């Protein structure tokens, strides 16, 4: 690990100001991804600003009946909150499907959104990676790509975003609140938060330099049947090969998919709004979601896996709504 200096921030704006004034500075919250990357010298911050004790660990009801989740709320506390469990079960299920008990006790809501890809070539500093070293190339193309992106990727990068939580938040129309070094605040819909990789896969979000996430806000509860199904290579503590976040309603005994987002497919939570709303078959929905898919030989298996998982989730929604 490279040497760095350390300070504890006194407020969110002070933290942003501290990161703004020192080149190479970074925020540290749970640290579960950042410290791992620092040990490998993939992340080499010169200065760490600890944002753990700024009072951003509350979950509050908003005036319009939504929920404001502080950026420092730990994954365990988010999934265990009774309002989340009863009103946003999709989010509780997604969070509980990720990582291990130890990691969820430490990992934060803001940090989860900003975690980096687990593409093996991002982690292997002996190999080219446009995300880790811009312009160096992409070793994943033609390499081991069995768990990499099939949609929304570019010629520069086929990495996937690893978060489960972000997939549920995308389906639930969450908004990300941030503060900048000058104290100004802004609200960004999660729909606009992640960038497509394009030619600059190292720039992953629309956050500006030294801008800090302070909270994530959910609109009013949607109701309906909410299902998060994660397909992975072992039963626990593994990243998704494909995950489906669905909110469904029932119309004349049939299922209408109101919200639908996928994990494991793309550089960001993958949601195609055109696939939602109308009563369609799983095949018809998958055709829309997967339009323009460009899988590698290694991960073409994800195309039928998406279709089958979607059909299984729709069948589950049908049986749950019939209860």
């Amino acid at each position: 690990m490279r040497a760095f200096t350390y300070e504890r921030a006194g407020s969110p704006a002070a933290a942003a100001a501290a990161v703004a004034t020192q080149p190479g500075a970074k925020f540290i919250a749970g640290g579960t991804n950042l410290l791992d990357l620092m040990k490998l010298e993939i992340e080499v911050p010169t200065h760490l600003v600890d944002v753990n004790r700024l009072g951003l660990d509350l979950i509050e009801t908003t005036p319009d009946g939504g929920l404001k989740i502080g950026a420092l709320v730990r994954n365990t506390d988010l999934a265990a909150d009774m309002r989340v469990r009863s009103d946003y079960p999709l989010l509780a299920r997604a969070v509980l499907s990720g990582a291990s008990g130890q990691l969820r006790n430490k990992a934060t809501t803001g940090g989860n959104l900003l975690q980096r890809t687990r593409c093996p070539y991002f982690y292997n500093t002996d190999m080219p990676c446009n995300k880790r070293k811009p312009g160096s190339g992409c070793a994943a193309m033609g390499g081991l790509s069995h768990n990499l992106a099939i949609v929304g990727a570019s010629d520069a990068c086929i990495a996937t975003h690893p978060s489960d939580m972000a997939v549920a938040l995308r389906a639930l129309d969450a908004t990300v609140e941030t503060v900048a070094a000058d104290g100004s605040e802004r609200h960004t819909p999660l729909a606009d938060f992640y960038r497509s990789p394009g030619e600059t896969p190292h720039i992953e979000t629309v956050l500006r330099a030294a801008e800090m996430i302070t909270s994530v806000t959910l609109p009013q509860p949607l109701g309906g049947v909410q299902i998060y199904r994660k397909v992975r290579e072992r039963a626990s503590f593994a990243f998704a090969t494909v995950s489906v976040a669905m909110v469904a309603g029932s119309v004349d005994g049939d299922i209408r998919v109101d919200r639908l987002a996928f994990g494991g497919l793309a550089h960001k939570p993958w949601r195609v709004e055109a696939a939602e709303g109308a009563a369609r078959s799983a095949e018809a929905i998958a055709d829309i979601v997967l339009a323009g898919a460009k899988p590698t030989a290694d991960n073409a298996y994800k195309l039928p896996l998406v279709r089958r998982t979607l059909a299984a989730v729709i069948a589950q929604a049908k049986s749950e709504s019939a209860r």
Partner: protein
Amino acid sequence: MTIAQDSPARSETSAAACSVTFSVNGRTSSLVLDPRVTLLDVLREHLHLTGTKKGCDQGQCGACTVMVNGRRINSCLTLALMHEGDEITTIEGLGSPEALHPLQKAFLDHDGFQCGYCTPGQIISAVAVLEEIGAGVPSHVTADLNGAPPATDEEIRERMSGNLCRCSAYPNIIAAIRDMVEDHV
């Protein structure tokens, strides 16, 4: 998985040292540390509490599991400086050879280990798992999110998935934890 070096072995330059005070197993420690020192390294190398083990050093194996303010975490993935004022419990704080914690005894009774390297992490984690189930914290396999999670083998397995055992003593680890269920949940 590679064998990790004691950080900061890969360092080229040293950083400005910072001070931190926390308690470990009820004893207060004030230390001046290089910011790179993880909680795991401070426990083992500075406080000589070598019960907590370094396996992968990247949060995947769980051998370094300790309790901080009553919650289990991977001590390898947190900086010691981030724990000002915290109360840390390691395997040494749970029981002693003369007075074993009931779960330590259950691991012995059920042969819940072979080489023993993962065992301190398994036991700390298991103590926390029973507390989490008792507190109603749901897991991935909890059928009813709004009800109290049952202390079934399925729940225990899911909740222990962050603790690997290369000797694969899992059936006996589950048996040891199951022994404790009636007392703690």
